[in-house]
Structures are given as structure tokens and as C-alpha cells.
């Protein structure tokens, strides 16, 4: 469902998702994402200073509204411009467009 790829020298944490991200799946991966992000948070500021967070949706064919919420909550924890969604297929891109979030979440 989700694989992490932490590139410490480049300060980039990539989450590669797979399959259908429905509400049930999102309930599970939500915690996994939060836990992984806490590992690299600056303990002093509780922020992900300097890190790029990337959600790779290459192998995703469906997203629930709870996944959109995960994206929004994650983006709020990183510095402006340091969150992005890559490799979305056109249907997923449209989903973010309808939610009015494609620019905010830097969807490509």
C-alpha cells in the first residue's frame, strides 16, 4: 500500500503508494505516514525543516476523500513548496483539481 524511501543526504522523503486508496486503506496508512514523518522532525521545532515530502502516485488508481485529507494534513507540516504529488494519472489529477487542491499540493 505504501513504501517509504528516505534519502537523508538529499533531505527527501518519498512515499510510494499502490492500488486503491479507499477509506479503509487510508485509516491504516495515515498512522504510518505520521510515524515516519515524526522520525525526521526537528525535535526542537516539531517541523520537518528543510525536507521535501513527495507522494508518488504512479501505481494508484483511486483515492478516497480521506486520502485527500492526509495530503492536506501532511502538506501543512512541511515548509511551503516542499510538498508535492508526482506521477498522478489524469483521473487522479482531476480528482485533486475538483477538490481545489492541485496547486496547493503541487500535483503533477
Amino acid at each position, binding site marked *: 500500500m505504501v513504501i517509504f524511501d528516505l534519502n537523508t543526504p538529499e533531505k527527501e522523503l518519498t512515499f510510494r503508494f499502490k492500488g486503491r486508496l479507499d*477509506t479503509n486503506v487510508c485509516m491504516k496508512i495515515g498512522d504510518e505516514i505520521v510515524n515516519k514523518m515524526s522520525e525526521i522532525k526537528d525535535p526542537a521545532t516539531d517541523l520537518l525543516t528543510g525536507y521535501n515530502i513527495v507522494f508518488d502516485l504512479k501505481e494508484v488508481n483511486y483515492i478516497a476523500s480521506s486520502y*485527500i*485529507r492526509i495530503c492536506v494534513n501532511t502538506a501543512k507540516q512541511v515548509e511551503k513548496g516542499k510538498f508535492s504529488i508526482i506521477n498522478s494519472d489524469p483521473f487522479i489529477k482531476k480528482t485533486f483539481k*475538483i477538490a481545489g487542491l492541485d496547486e496547493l499540493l503541487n500535483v503533477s
Partner: protein
Amino acid sequence: MGVLPIEKANEVLEKALFAAAEFQQFNQEETDNIVEAVYKAGFNARVKLAKMAYEETGIGVWEHKVLKNVIATQLVYDSIKNEKTVGIISNDRQTGIIEIAQPLGPIFAVTPVTNPTSTVMFKILICLKTRNPIIISSHRSAIKCCTETVRICYEAALEAGAPEDCIQIISAGSHELTQTVMGHPKVALILATGGTGLVKAAYSSGNPAIGVGPGNVPVFIDESADLPFTVANIISSKTFDNGTICASEQSVIIEEKIEKNVRAEFERQKCYFLNPEETERVSKIAVVADSLSMNPLIVGQSVESIAKKANLIIPEGTCMLIAKLNGVGKDYPLSVEVLAPILSFYVAKDYQTAIKTCIDLNYLGGIGHSAGIYANDDKRILEFSQLINAGRILVNTPTSQGAVGGIFNNLIPSLTLGCGTGGKNITTENISAKQLINIQRVCRRKLNEKWQNIDRNLYLDESLDESTLIKKYNKNQ
């Protein structure tokens, strides 16, 4: 400090928008499964919700509200279940046009106190069928029963795999919140059912709206009508849920020559004709004189309750009050819409005068809504129909149950009745799922050969008139 209306509206719309984003990924089968589940849940709760609505609002008759819930679920579901509302809905090889249905986005649905649970279920079903999230604002006097209706429908929808927040309800107590949501830029469409003020607010919001407001339904009884049948039908309609359906009969108009028989038939079927002094008393409690609008306190009340309020002594078992009026307008308060078992009664000297009275009543607050005629004379039925401005002209049919469709005719079952431009609507149809999709048309290249073959420079020649050019245009090639 509490949450500001705009903050609340933003929160509600964000949830709805996320639901819309998820919903547009659903296929027809997934969508239909959700609609079926919600229909069944709503249908199974029909009695409980009807009783709740009656107890909370004090309006109508709970047994009749059960039937309204059945119309809003069973009949509505039956009419939409096989409709294509997702993806490619038609492919016409001859015209080369493929139609694709797309959802609209968040729909803001305002529901009335008169038909609270039924309208909520109806609007939920047609919104889900079209993959649109719905935000409901119920009337403040019906918030409990509407909240319970939403809970039942939402739980069934989620169980069937629907997106989170695809159905929401906002606290209707706040007029400001309703106004703010109405004008919110993320709202795709407003489905407003209610009074004139509400409908006007919906249309002034800047968002697309289907607003259905009041009616003032005239019913002409022709001399050719079957009187016992006619009177029985009118009574069954006007007393249904104590007259709360906006398509219910407001006035009966007849020719002088049949007055005696019509009156006798109404009396035989337990209606009570008010004398002029009683009419004045009922007028005072039924209509607010300054605004010439019905008094909300008598809406959906029983005959006994109205009689008590007006200090009337009426025969036991009376099912309806009838007031004979000599005119239409502000000097005759009961000539306006009154959603209660009070019927106004006009006797005209001849057919022409009777029809003119129907037109006057029709234009007194009920343009575009509904009208009725009882006749066994096709010429008169068609003449009446062409003179009256109504989306539905019900023939030999109770107008309440006739206008909502699916029982006495093949109109689309609906609790939101389009009133055309007369009612400031874009349509006179009964609103259903088909009005809640954007249809995209994929147009394949299909050349108009006549256009291709004519020398189009000929159009530039001012000396050539229409008949010459059309002849050349239609010339066989």
C-alpha cells in the same frame, strides 16, 4: 466566541468538495449500489420518520406523511434506478454525438417544513444517483426529524461504499449560515424548496439554482364532469396531509348553472360551506392581511383545529371548509395559497367568466405551478390548458398526488416541481436526477453536405433573396 458562518460554511464546503472529488471516480454500478442501499434504508424508516416529522412540526397527518415518504423513496427510486447517470449515457451513431454525464459538485438543498423527511430523502436519492454530495439545510422547525433522516441515509450510504461527507446537514437555525452557504463559490447548485423569500434568496445568491416556490392551484369543474367522482378526488387531495402539498387545490371554479349540484355534492361528502361572516373570521386567521400571505400557524392544521382558532361551530366529521368568494386579490384573502383544508369557491355566470377567474387565480402567486380541470370534454380541457400558465395541468386527477407524479399519471415522481419562467425556474418539469448532471457532448465530424456544396460567396450577394438562396442550398448534388 462561536464559529462564524463563513468559517462553518468553508468547513462544510471543504468536506463536500473532497466528497465530490472522490465521488466522480465512481462507476455506474458503484453509484447504483449506494442509491439502492439508501432507498431501502429510507423506505424502511418511513413510519418512524413520518411520526417524528408530525410530532416535531405539528403539521399534517402522520399516516399521510408515511405515504409521502413512500413516494420519495419507492416511487422516486423506481423512476431513477435504471437511468444512466455516469459516464457515457448515449451514443448515437447517426448524429455522431456521444453524451457523457458528469456530476455537478456540492449541491445545497433547502427543504421545507411541510414535507420535511420526504423532501430530504428525495433530494438525497437524486443527488447520490448523480454522484453529487449534498448539504441539507432543513427548516428550523423540522431539524430533529431531518437530522435523523440524514443519519439513516448517510449510514446506509457509507455502508455501501459512498464517500465520507457525501451527505451533510447544517443547523438550519442560522439564517445567516444558510445565506452564506447559498452564496459560497464552491456550491455547484442550490435546490431550494420553500417560500417566496427563500427561493428569491437562492436566485440572488450568484450560484445556479432550481428554486421552487408557492403555487395557487385553480381547479375548474366543467359541466361535463362526473360530480361525485370530482368532489371525492378534490377532497382526497386537499385533505391529504391537511393540504400541505403546494400542488393542492386552492380554489374551485364552476359555472352558475351547476352550482346547486356541486354544492350539494360537497355537502354530501362532509364539506362545510362558510357563511360570509365565518369566511371573514377564517380569512383573518388563515392569511396575513398586510403581506397577503398564508399564516404559518394554520399550515397543515386539521379542520377541527382551524375551526377552533376561528371560533366556528361546524358539523361533526367535517373534512374541509369551503369559502365562497366573489373576487380575487387583496380584498379576498382566501384567494391566495393556503396550505390547509380550506378551499375557496367561485361561481361564474358562464364558462368564459369562469376561465377568466381561473387565470386571475393562477397569476395570483401561482404562475407556472399546477392547475386542475375536471371535464369530459376534450375541447375544453385543451382550451383551459392553453390559457393557464402551469407546468402541470392535471385532468380528472387530484392535484396534490397528481402533480408529484407516479401515482395518477406518468409524470416523473418528484417533490420539487419546476414552475417554468413564471416561477423563475428554468424548467416546468418535475425535478429529478436528470437535472443534476452536466451532459458533455462529444461531437464527431459529420459534414452538412448542403453547406459544403453551396457556393458560400452567394450569401454575400445582397441581390439574392431568401427563396433563391434556399433553392440553391437544397439543390441535389
